[in-house]
């Protein structure tokens, strides 16, 4: 069977002066074209049907995204332009809520607290998670036990952990004060000082490093053993192998954990809500906690929405910035 060519297809509708042989040939071509057209149509129908089915199957996610992400985002943007308590008639505020943000001393303070927390907790969390992942990756028989033990603290809910920490840092009975007491330091209420209270919350965040460690562990398992073997043959020691092979090849995982860590760091809330209620002297009043208080304690939904929009934009900008800078340090391919 002659293949259907574009030429043949192009000539399909005209009178052919070349005789019956050519006519027969043309008929064959026309038949082929029809069959091809049918096949294409059938293929398209299958594709459309698959698309419909696919959409139907992921519709719970789509509906969830539209209802619980897209709609609140747009609604929040609209409410940020209003003076609105949530129950009374809203009035248009224009950019009033945004200019108020620029003048609000508590926004400055809560932003500083949040950056202080994120600036310490995120890099420290990455380091702790990486160390945990390396331990979880150790080639020993009891590795399953280690993995369970190291991941277990991540399963404790944050609010439960917060209550535990209240006891942990008790000046008289708490383990933390006992430990620092070994170094000659007197017992103190570390939750009673703004800086140390923030540091306690940073410390507490490290107990959740197991989640990031699991992602690191997956990344570690993707690094080919042959690279380590070759490096060992070339005389590279463990430290050199770590910095030349492990770290560069883990860079996409580091990037992922960094972005999610910063996103989580900017949304720090529960620990301050339970441990310190934002105090002392607003020392642990984090941005999201202040936003929450405006929305629900003071019923200033317009202002709280404006704060949410600003947080969204800052988070977005940071993510874009990190992705742009990541081109310099992230290695996606292994060039063996």
């Amino acid at each position: 069977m002659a293949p259907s060519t574009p030429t043949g297809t192009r000539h399909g509708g005209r009178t052919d002066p070349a005789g019956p042989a050519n006519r027969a040939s043309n008929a064959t071509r026309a038949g082929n074209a029809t069959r091809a057209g049918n096949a294409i149509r059938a293929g398209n129908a299958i594709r459309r049907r698959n698309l419909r089915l696919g959409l139907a199957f992921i519709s719970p996610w789509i509906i969830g995204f539209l209802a619980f992400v897209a709609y609140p985002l747009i609604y929040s943007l609209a409410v940020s332009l209003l003076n609105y308590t949530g129950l009374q008639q809203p009035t248009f505020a224009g950019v009033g809520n945004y200019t108020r943000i620029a003048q609000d001393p508590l926004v400055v303070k809560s932003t500083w607290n949040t950056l202080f927390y994120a600036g310490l907790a995120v890099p420290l969390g990455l380091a702790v998670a990486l160390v945990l992942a390396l331990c979880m990756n150790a080639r020993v028989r009891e590795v399953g036990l280690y993995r369970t033990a190291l991941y277990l603290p991540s399963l404790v809910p944050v609010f439960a952990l917060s209550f535990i920490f209240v006891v942990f840092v008790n000046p008289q009975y708490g383990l933390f004060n006992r430990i620092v007491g070994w170094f000659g330091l007197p017992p103190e209420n570390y939750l009673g000082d703004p800086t140390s209270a923030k540091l306690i919350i940073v410390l507490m965040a490290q107990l959740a490093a197991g989640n990031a460690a699991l992602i690191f562990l997956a990344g570690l398992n993707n690094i080919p053993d042959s690279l380590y073997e070759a490096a060992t043959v070339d005389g590279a020691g463990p430290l050199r192998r770590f910095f030349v092979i492990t770290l560069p090849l883990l860079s996409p995982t580091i990037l992922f954990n960094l972005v999610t860590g910063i996103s989580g760091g900017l949304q720090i809330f529960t620990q301050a809500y339970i441990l310190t209620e934002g105090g002392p002297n607003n020392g642990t009043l984090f941005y999201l906690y202040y936003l929450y208080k405006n929305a629900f304690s003071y019923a200033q939904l317009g202002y709280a929405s404006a704060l949410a929009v600003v947080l969204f934009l800052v988070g977005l900008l940071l993510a874009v910035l990190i992705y742009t800078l990541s081109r310099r340090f992230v290695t996606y391919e292994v060039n063996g």
Partner: protein
Amino acid sequence: MSRRTLLLAAAGAAAVPTWAACAPARRPNEIVVWVKSGSSDMMESLGILAETYQQRNPGKLVRLVTVQSRGDDDATLLITAIRGNTAPDVFLGDRFTFAQFGSRGLLQDLSPLLAGEDADLLGGFLPFTVNEAAYNGAVYGIPFDTDSRGLYFNKGLLRDSGVDPAVLDPARGAPTFDQVWEIADKVSRTDAAGSYTHLGFIPWEEQAWPFTWCLANDAVIFDEASCRIAVDDPGFRQVYADYRDWARRLDYPKVDAFVATYKPPNAPPSQSPFFNDRLATSVVFSNFIFNLKKYAPKLDWGVTYLPVRADGDEPYSWSGGSGFTIPTGAANVEDAWEFIKFMTSPQGQAVWVQRQNYLPTRTAMLSDESLIADQRFFADLLIGGYGHSRPPLPVGPALWEAMNTAREGVLLGQSGPDEAMAEIARRVQPELDQYCPVSPGLGR
């Protein structure tokens, strides 16, 4: 399983919770009552009252619900319930928050309901309790209970420290700050590490709020004429100067460690350095008697007036308390109103006062010895006209929080009195400006 069956099953599974969410969650004639931060003891006493109401009103059903919240001004649950059309019928909360909650549309004006009642329904209540639950001509709540503040002292610890407790006998009048410090210095002790093991007086613990000491200084907090928080008032500023001096005198971090040791955050009411002979004096409200009887029944204690600046100064105190209100969107307003009238009636308050050691809000009941035998000292403070309340402003809780946060800054040495006043103004005035002018004649 065919795809069609799977999809139908999935749709069915999704429909069940949707149907459940839309199904009616309450029975007819049910009165849903939210109690803010109600302890188990309080809920038990309220349960007895609710039972009595149900017996007197066959067919009515009272459902008591405890709602926990953070801080006085936290209206999170109320806001979400109202927006979700599941508002309770009755809310029992801090009376001084009603002006703020009402001004934001969370509470109903009860004036139309009062119009159908005896004209003097509110006339028998202590005037400040009525004023505290009103704002801009609207009545947002009916007062249920009140309290008063005093200086409690642990007689055993004072004796052990060589102090005769008789020096704090209220018959001698209000002690001066100097006298209290003199006593406290004899009690306070430290261990080898320099940590406090015993303290005589902590002038920022429990009810020793900035507002408490504002009264000692005759401070003006809110200037009605200019609708401004009176941060220029010398008495107001003096409170923060005192806190700064007291923090230096006692070494604030050491006291903070002491408090966190014996009364850590979220501690139960049974835990108090006053109960276990660690703290000699404490500024607490009248209802503390309930805790003393329950958790430290053998403690030898007394109570006197709050310290005054100079010998012979007139005593002072202040009162808060709770009230019943009807939130916006309540489904069963008629029954809610009947329930509120019963709870705030002399019969309702009598049960509450006797069981929980609160003071009644009905003036005549303060003279009933059978009701308030334990609280004679505090009842006399109210009868004597010392029961001031916090100014019920549309930003009352926000102001309260700002004043207390400013205190933390001063105690920590991170700000001075001037910065504290500036911080209060910056925090509260922009919010207050939205409501100015604020109707005069409220509070006090």
